[in-house]
């Protein structure tokens, strides 16, 4: 089975969309913010944008599905939900993306001195990672045609341990600085990984 080349990439803060709906939800705010909160959010948005260093790496792999086993070029994994997600695909894109270590430092700093600011920055940063993943997803669609919804380790019955294989396959530590803790958490904290199935008929 074939694997593609490593494709590292980076996005500027202005190239991604940070959705207000998403960050308001993440911070546990109502659908609309009031005066003082709006001012805080505006301030934090600026700070997050200054600290963002979005980097990622993607790599394609052929896939073969024999439910519940999904075989990639680099390993096989048992997962009914991933089998279902990738049904009808013979190829996929795997990627890791991060908002960078600077964001984590910003959150740590405000956790110590202003938890409300830490909460708002944390939420905006999560929305930024989501926005970056959306941008990548759109690029993948543009290149390969119709795709499946992106699927991350930990979704459904896809074991979290799959992070290890995914990060190793994409050489994410070296190319994007995305690493794992002993407890399978991604570092920097504001990072995400996913698999995007490429629909066959469209290829």
């Amino acid at each position, binding site marked *: 089975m074939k694997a593609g080349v490593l494709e590292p990439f980076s996005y500027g803060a202005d190239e991604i969309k940070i959705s207000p709906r998403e960050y308001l939800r993440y911070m546990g705010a109502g659908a609309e913010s009031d005066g003082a909160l709006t001012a805080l959010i505006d301030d934090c948005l600026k700070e997050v944008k200054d600290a963002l260093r979005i980097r990622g790496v993607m790599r394609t792999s052929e896939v073969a599905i024999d439910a519940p086993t999904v075989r990639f070029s680099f390993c096989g994994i048992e997962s009914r939900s991933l089998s279902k997600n990738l049904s009808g695909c013979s190829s996929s894109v795997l990627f890791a993306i991060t908002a960078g270590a600077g964001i984590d430092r910003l959150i740590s700093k405000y*956790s110590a001195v202003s938890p409300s600011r830490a909460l708002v920055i944390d939420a905006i940063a999560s929305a930024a990672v989501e926005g970056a993943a959306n941008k990548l997803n759109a690029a993948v669609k543009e290149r390969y045609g119709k795709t499946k919804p992106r699927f991350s380790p930990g979704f459904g019955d896809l074991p979290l341990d799959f992070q290890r294989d995914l990060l190793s396959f994409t050489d994410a530590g070296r190319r994007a600085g995305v690493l794992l803790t002993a407890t399978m958490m991604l570092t920097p904290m504001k990072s995400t990984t996913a698999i995007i199935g490429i629909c066959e008929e469209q290829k």
Partner: protein
Amino acid sequence: MRNPFSEIKDRAIILDGATGTLLQAAGLLPGELPETWALTHPDAIREVHRSYLEAGSDLIAADTFGANRLKFPEGGEFPLDGIVRAAVTLAREEADAFSAKTGKKPYVALDMGPTGRLLKPLGDLDFEEAVSVFSEVAKLGEKYGADCILIETVNDSYELKAAVLAAKESTSLPVFATCVFDETGRLLTGADPLTAVSILEGLGVDALGVNCGFGPDKLGGVVDDLLKYASVPVIVKPNAGLPVVKDGKTEYDVPADTFAGLLSDMVKKGARAVGGCCGTTPEYICKLAEAVAGIKPVKPEKKEYAAVCSGVRSFIIGPRPAVIGERINPTGKKKIKEALRAENYGEIFDEAVRQEERGADILDVNAGLPEIDEPAVLETLVKGLQGITSLPLCIDTSDPAAMERALRVYSGKALINSVNGKDEVLDAVLPLAAKYGGVVIGLTLDEDGIPDEPENRLKIAEKIVSRAAEYGIGKRDIVIDPLVLTVSADPLAAKRTLDSVSLIKKELGVAVSLGVSNVSFGLPGRDRLNSVFLAEALSRGLDAAIANPLSDMMMGVFASHAALTGADPGFARYIAAEDGKEEKSAVRTGDITLSAAIETGLSSRAAELTAALLETVPPLEVIEGYIIPALDRVGKAFEEKKLYLPQLLMSAEAAGASFDEVKKKMPRGAGASKGGIVLATVKGDIHDIGKNIVRTLLENFGFTVFDLGRDVPPERVLEAALRHGVAIVGLSALMTTTVPAMEETIKLVHEKAPGVKVVVGGAVLTAEYADAIGADKYCKDAMETVGYAKEIYGK
């Protein structure tokens, strides 16, 4: 011990090219660890080495890049010792065979790549654990015959420090270190080239540089910076550009000829060693060797700037004088004393951020209290501070044991405060500066005290400089502090100090610093006196001052001096300092009550209104009549979903600011705590935003919180619960993978501290789940936790 940089002097040193690229061509599968090939495919590894030697490499790196116990744990399929022995031996044998054939004497490097885990506080790997992982490999490399150690592809400055320290500490081999810079010219964790150079030279590497990341076409800026700042030889080992697929095959977009041409230009500018990383092959190395063969190497110059740095950014001392923030120091500060005693560092972190926001360049950190374990506290404090501020730190202690522990775990190159002319002190502290790096502050006092005459202070300064030279510490890494005495005790004290500044600058040519605030001790209008003294000292050439950045007057002097002496081109700092003042006064507009300020979350307004209210209303009444009712209304609105988490927190912070004002007016012991609670995010879990929210709310409602931070082992939770005699322990976990650690902690607390209640929360938890792991209580949010604490403490 053989070092190519001292032996090959007539031309650039040629390193090897990629190993992975060649092994993939030979059949290495995606996900397969290349280091295992030293055992499973020794002939393929020999072939890689042989082809690079024949292409012209002076130094080949053994196949040990990922060989460490985190990737090859004990009891696994491949023993670490076996891998390193096989890999180094294969390289050695090929080098020897090549030597027998050609008479050339190639070098064999032990190759050390990153551990694959991010260090605390960004990740979960402890600094000393990382040092130990690298030490183990370094020792094996030396044992099996490597000539030198090449640390490569590191993209975190803290891990870089761990690797270099380990290599230097556990072997006697020359150490070279190269890191990965991205397109913004920084490491992934933020350090720029100057910062990397400062850390690496401080630790005593024999050469440093850049590898991987990009092709030589995109590394020009980084290489220029490395050459500008480094005094040791610079290594450049880039990729063959970026990979592209051509006719179904992976190729790199910088061809061998272009690669060789670009690198030979870098050699002309001063790079001393060149080679290749991902995508380069013997063809690249061969062309590279030919291209640089006739170029005479540039000898690296000793640079004269003085820099300190954190793990992220640097500060060059001069021409703009440095503001060293003095406020993290228990002397005369009740809050800092209490924070140090209780090991509850929130107040200290506040102080750090406030000073940073007000324009401090470096932060002094002093934890000198007689009744505490200073080495342990200082280490913890430095670890905590480097997580929340990117300013370089000035480690301030007279205890050499505390100094060593702080310098060891510090992620940057610190200002070391201080040595003096006493041999006992010089002998204790200078070796630490030599080992860990740092800029040393030398006080002009000795066994006979502080001399009156500037000439005698100069003599002590000269002694410090010459003793430092014995340890290889150059003048640029020394700052002399000629000491300020109180003018109220001796009217000539300030004049003597100022004359000493001039004299030492003129005669010795080192940077000079002062702790200015001492001058006014015992007199009224201290801020004004300090400011004028500072201005006088700056006009004599003072390079740095330990001062209070929260003083507008002092900061005004610094900013004005820089603006008037051309050290602030464009007046950016001067204008920013003035803007900062305006912003503060702008908050004063609008007319609202204290309750409204708290309920809408306006912290500085709440503090001001509280201070005004305290003029007429007794402290306890302000709490009971204004702050608590406002908080209760906000809490109730949150429970009724009329307002949301961010607003709740903003109100909590405003109430906190208000409490701080009240506390200033309260007699000691009044407004006692409603009870203590230990909080922690469990071992293995690095997410703590939820726990911090709970902390804020609990503190607001009058509870004393002992926040142990994140990734906290069960034993520490138990120890804190027992020591502080609390009735409640609160634990947080975000993911299913860390719930077992939570369960373990609950079990330990229940067993060893019966009666202590454990309340849990976090994204993955539910009431049922909490029950199953033995928790006493599950709380869905911070307000519910406050309710539970009130219930347990019966208030």
